[in-house]
């Protein structure tokens, strides 16, 4: 009905653009809102990270048990799941696959479980560095690197072997009082 103009330009942009799936970050936090692990796949300032964490922990903790595992948050999609006292929470982009992200979380939990043997929150607190190492073997840059449970654990166990070889004498020294 009206004169030309840029309106049409905007709308012709309605073509769907496909982005490669891109996880923005993963957070683990407790029922009490304590952050147990944070992994950022996009560059953000510490201030921003803290702000996002605070907001998101609040939002997710406020949700009731039977609610859907996905929610829109800012321009991102949050996929989260609770395991015992821990919430696992991933932020993905709008076009990304929610269900497969949910299973990424589950596979990570399985890996932790297998490695620690019935993992609990304390394991992750006291061995936070291990939790990071396992995550890096599984996800890199926010993408699944190795989805085979066997292969990931093999890599971690090999590293532990290297560690034990190197550590054993040290531990003794430490016991003597070199803390």
């Amino acid at each position, binding site marked *: 009905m009206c*004169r030309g103009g840029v309106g*049409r*330009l905007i709308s012709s942009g309605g073509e769907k653009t496909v982005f490669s799936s891109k996880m923005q970050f993963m957070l683990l936090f407790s029922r009490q809102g304590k952050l147990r692990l944070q992994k950022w796949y996009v560059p953000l300032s510490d201030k921003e990270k803290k702000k996002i964490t605070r907001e998101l922990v609040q939002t997710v903790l406020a949700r009731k048990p039977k609610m859907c595992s996905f929610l829109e948050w800012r321009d991102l999609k949050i996929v989260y799941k609770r395991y015992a006292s821990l919430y696992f929470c991933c932020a993905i982009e709008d076009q990304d*696959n929610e269900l497969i992200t949910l299973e990424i979380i589950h596979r990570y939990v399985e890996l932790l479980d297998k490695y620690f043997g019935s993992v609990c929150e304390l*394991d992750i607190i006291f061995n936070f560095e291990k939790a990071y*190492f396992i995550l890096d073997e599984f996800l890199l840059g926010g*993408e699944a690197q*190795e989805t*085979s449970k066997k292969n990931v654990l093999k890599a971690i166990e090999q590293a532990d072997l290297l560690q034990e070889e190197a550590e054993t004498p040290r531990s003794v020294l430490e016991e003597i009082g070199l803390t």
Partner: protein
Amino acid sequence: MPAVSKGDGMRGLAVFISDIRNCKSKEAEIKRINKELANIRSKFKGDKALDGYSKKKYVCKLLFIFLLGHDIDFGHMEAVNLLSSNKYTEKQIGYLFISVLVNSNSDLIRLINNGIKNDLASRNPTFMNLALHCIANVGSREMAEAFASQIPNILVAGDTMDSVKQSAALCLLRLNRMSPDLVPMGEWTARVVHLLNDQHLGVVTAATSLITNLAQKSPDDFKTAVSLAVARLSRIVTSASIDLQDYTYYFVAAPWLSVKLLRLLQCYPPPEDAALRSRLTECLETILNKAQEPPKSKKVQHSNAKNAILFEAISLIILHDSEPTLLVRACNQLGQFLQHRETNLRYLALESMCTLASSEFSHEAVKTHIDTVINALKTERDVSVRQRAVDLLYAMCDRSNAKQIVAEMLSYLETADYSIREEIVLKVAILAEKYAVDYTWYVDTILNLIRIAGDYVSEEVWYRVIQIVINRDEVQGYAAKTVFEALQAPACHENLVKVGGYILGEFGNLIAGDSRSSPLVQFNLLHSKFHLCSVPTRALLLSAYIKFINLFPEVKTTIQDVLRSDSQLRNADVELQQRAVEYLRLSCIASTDILATVLEEMPPFPERESSILAKLKKKKGPGHLPDIDDARRNVNGSTEHSENAEAPKTGSNHPFTDLMSVNSPPPVANSLLVDVFSDISTPAPVDVCEENFSRFVCKNNGVIFENQLLQIGLKSEYRQNLGRMYVFFGNKTSTQFLSFSSSVASQDSLKAHILSATCVLSPQLNVHAKTVDPIIEGGAQVQQILNIECVSDFTDAPVLTIQFRYGGALQNITVKLPVMLNKFFQPTEMTSQDFFQRWKQLGAPQQEVQKIFKAKHPMDSEVTKAKILGFGVALLDGVDPNPANFVGAGVIHTKSTQVGCLLRLEPNTQAEMYRLTLRTSRDSVSQRLCDLLSDQF
């Protein structure tokens, strides 16, 4: 102490963590941390060289403190030192610290890069992986500069271990995201594609992510990936669940890889090769079939993984939008999920159906689920799911179900969560307008919106209802009656007072015949709300009152009394006071005729994109929202989709918003108050300025003339065969212009020295110029309105002749006005089939005009698009087989006839030439349009 499991952790660290956990208060925790920080600092500064283990332990403690949320400002150097340790665990902690804590401290980065370089060169796969993980985690530009060219070699080298390949692929992906300019394309890309054939599924998984990312950047370079991806996918979906061993996840074969492959395929159109295409279709069918099979496990992981693939397949089907059977099957599948007991699946089904609703093949199929979706809106317990249901209802809405959907949304609004009310209001307003068959329904709906959720009704929404009422005669009486009735409510929302005030001010006369809504009753009703309203609303009501004075002389004295009261004339708010003073004065001194002219009914608004739609788009972000206007690929006829154009303008410069804006002066039409026909002798003809003429072919606003004294700006609007041009004369000097006059003539009549003061008639074009104040103060601007009517097609533009005295000297300026034939275009959307049919019909030699010409400006396709749209035709996508070409269609409206016009512009970037072809039913039109447009590129 918990039973720490493997790897023989660092005892000191565990003790420290226990201590922290035992702290009873935040203060105690901070005290403990400060003690530890002091201890570590002294160790790091101490004379005794620390061994690797201690360094590792302290760095790890610092990391823990940082992760608790405390700032860490030392220890970076020690962490970097750990990188050069040849003990794996020390290196590992060093890298972890860096990837968590590093910021772009450039000195440090150089040292880190050095450590990474050594590890990459070590040929020790575990060390290489650590280094690659670090690059992927940090991903900084400095790292990209250092390693972006090396990693592709590691990735494709024949002797690289599989695990290193996986890390390298994803590391490269991260760098390509962060610094795409630094990742060199080259011979390696072809070899990367072949990783899709790799035996190791972990390598294929990582490589698929990388290829997808690269293919988005340069699809042509990775075309070969399509056939490989289809082959791989086909092998996975047909495999027995045990075939893939550890890559089978809860009886689903390689779900992550499948999803990634499907996503890679979404970078490309459906394969052209028939065999490949049918193989892909088979895969998609198999995936759809599997959804119907009984589950192999009751675990939610099984169904999630299976459905993750299914949803990704559906995304691909929707994106390709080429296989009607698949689309309908997808729709049926989603329909089943709408009633699934898993909330997650219901959510996703609603979401996915939104995109399906925009395909012409599946729009009808989606509509069949309307009752389920409405039910979801009413019964879902999770607001995020209800939000999806609202989105889907919006997406599936068309003429056939608009009334039902709008009614459901309205009733949901009464109880809707506050967080989504505004969005629902916008959606209802858009749907009500878009699918209004009769506008009484539209008016009712918007008034309902204000009643139910007045606080969430933004300006855009109530502006819009007024625009529509003003533009449509048939609804004005009804609107006046309805707002009058709605205002009877003892408590009504301020937005209703605004709408009511505006509409009664314009159209109160239409219901004044009824004694129950006599002028005085109307006025008293409005004025009873006055004191409860905010300043902007009061300002609007004052404007309504002055309009009443014009409409109903019998209430003039009542209103004057109100205006005269101290609470108005001495109002503390300067805007209200000014309006009261000026309106009162105006009502006292102006004759009835002048009042009638000044306060005449608002002219129709130019049709443009609904500002509400723009607002919704802004709220949701482009592409986020299934756009009912544009995305539905032309199934319900073209006219209803072609209504919008022109960028949303919410500026206060529009006459409509002016009236309501408190920031602008009251709308007393300055140029009309003094109706003086200046009696000036005919000036000698002077050179006509056409310098800026051609700049206005594709736009309507701008500066047409400027010299040291005077600037002339234009704003124009056109609708069908009518136009209105606002001419702004700006006095650039500090001295008055005296005896100012401005008149319009056709060029022919100018040649013939026939000038009339106000009105000129040329056979093809009528231009009526309102007179303009004869004095322009220094630095001031006056406005002149020209009303234009196109009688039949024309070539010559009218000219504007301006005369005034500046410091005693008579100035003569003549400017060619940019009124061209293309201004009377209305864009026409049509399908490719229609286009070619009409193109053929206009095949007579004299109907076509073609011109080949050299580009005068850089050949930017976006600029070209904007120009063609500005020219006034609709740009038709997907009509021309060559996507570089532009195809447009429109209709020229003149009083006597309408001329359809098709055009095609073919750029040749190499030769920097264009070929423009126009076909219309009239040779003179073709020629003129061709001349006008070819000058623009």
